[in-house]
């Protein structure tokens, strides 16, 4: 293939044109770049709470999806410190900062379950079945082992064969209710994490 002058000029012209176009920066991509992720809390619902871990009692702001309207199922998707709280002033430790993964832990329990003697598995049961069975076990044990009088004949009215560990992460209301019920049965083997 031979190339004469005219062809050669054509060849050069095209190359020159293309490169100068490029040099002018005529690159096929948008002139304005918005690289910021959108602020994810806009219009989410804010609820105030208290960190359930240690006893500093840090204030929390929990952010949930949904307007609060009947048709939206509220789902908490972010938690950060409450800047108004006098103690934490918005800050949270690594535990508090990760609370969202506690609420949404894969190991949260969803249904009442029972493990029968010798069994190697859980069986899902209804709340009614669970509570009925537990209440019956309690009564059987209490009726069989309740001590009204001790050997000295003193009135003691205690029930020692069943014990109860209360949760020091439960609210005071839950705690009070638990105490009221447990004492009314005469249980003395009653304790909470205050000891450990």
């Amino acid at each position, binding site marked *: 293939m031979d190339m004469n002058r005219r062809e050669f000029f054509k060849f050069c012209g095209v190359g020159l044109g293309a490169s100068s176009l490029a040099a002018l*920066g005529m690159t096929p991509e948008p002139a304005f*770049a918005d690289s910021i992720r959108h602020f994810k809390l806009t219009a989410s619902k804010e609820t105030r709470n208290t960190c359930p871990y240690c006893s500093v009692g840090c204030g929390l702001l929990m952010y949930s999806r949904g307007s609060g309207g009947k048709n939206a199922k509220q789902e908490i998707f972010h938690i950060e410190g409450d800047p108004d709280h006098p103690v934490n002033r918005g*800050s949270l430790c690594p535990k508090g900062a990760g609370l969202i993964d506690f609420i949404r832990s894969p190991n949260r329990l969803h249904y009442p379950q029972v493990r029968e003697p010798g069994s190697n598995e859980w069986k899902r049961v209804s709340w009614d079945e669970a509570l009925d069975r537990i209440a019956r076990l309690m009564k059987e044990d209490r009726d069989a082992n309740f001590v009204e009088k001790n050997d000295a004949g003193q009135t003691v009215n205690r029930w020692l064969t069943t014990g109860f560990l209360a949760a020091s992460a439960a609210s005071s209301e839950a705690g009070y209710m638990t105490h009221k019920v447990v004492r009314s049965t005469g249980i003395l083997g009653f304790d909470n994490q205050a000891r450990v």
Partner: protein
Amino acid sequence: MATQDIIARSATTTPSPSVRQTDEVAKLIDTTVCIGCKACQVACSEWNDLRDEVGDNVGVYDNPTDLTADSWTVMRFDEHETSEGDLEWLIRKDGCMHCEDPGCLKACPSPGAIVKYDNGIVDFDQDKCIGCGYCITGCPFDVPRISQKDNKAYKCTLCSDRVSVGLEPACVKTCPTGAIVFGTKDDMKEHANWRIQDLKGRGYENAGLYDPPGVGGTHVMYVLHHADKPQLYSDLPRDPAISPLVGAWKGVAKPLAMLAMAATAAAGFFHYIRIGPNRVSKEDEAAVEQDSAQAGSNSPEAGGKSDEQ
């Protein structure tokens, strides 16, 4: 966007909008108040919806043991024995320093994949990232990481999404001891000076601010007990700067090479104009006729032995 216009774009030869002047922000990390609780690590992942792998303990407190595409900040623990035989547990929050002169941005070949806002934040736009890893090559602090999942580069954004709406970054807000503070760069320098005075009063003569000039200063700064020995803090570079190799590669090399290549082409063009093509002439053809004629009768003397058999 009002609070942070893009003032520099990667792989862009023309200037970005730079008329509006907004405050330069900075994050100050006071290693002398830091207790290494990792709240910043957790808050960062929580806010940015990142969940790294559950790793292993390799015999130290550090975990994750290094920055990854899913862990944009990590605490680095260093046990240092002083000359008096006392122990110092030097703990440093590692992550993007948000350089005034970002090596990653300089190295990035994809227009707008790395941007610097005029408040100083250096941000990656994964949508434009092509995954070449040049940002890693360019970074003086070894910060960016390419994700195995999507081959995009990731790093701390200084929570540009929070800052853009007027909030502090997640790590700053959560820091229990106030070891991480956030504000305008000027205020942060002032805060640092106040801290340094306190430290000198407590016997740390070499306490100081880490705001390396080699990269034009950073928008993440450290207060160090031993500002004279930053390397004590898990090898924080003493005098970081964009590597001259990267400088040459992304600096002079680009225009020079382009020019030289264009020149070569141009040289050819003008040679053709001035001297013109090199053609086989009538004489040459005649000579060939002659050769073949001789070839008919006797062998050529001229030919001699070819030097290439």
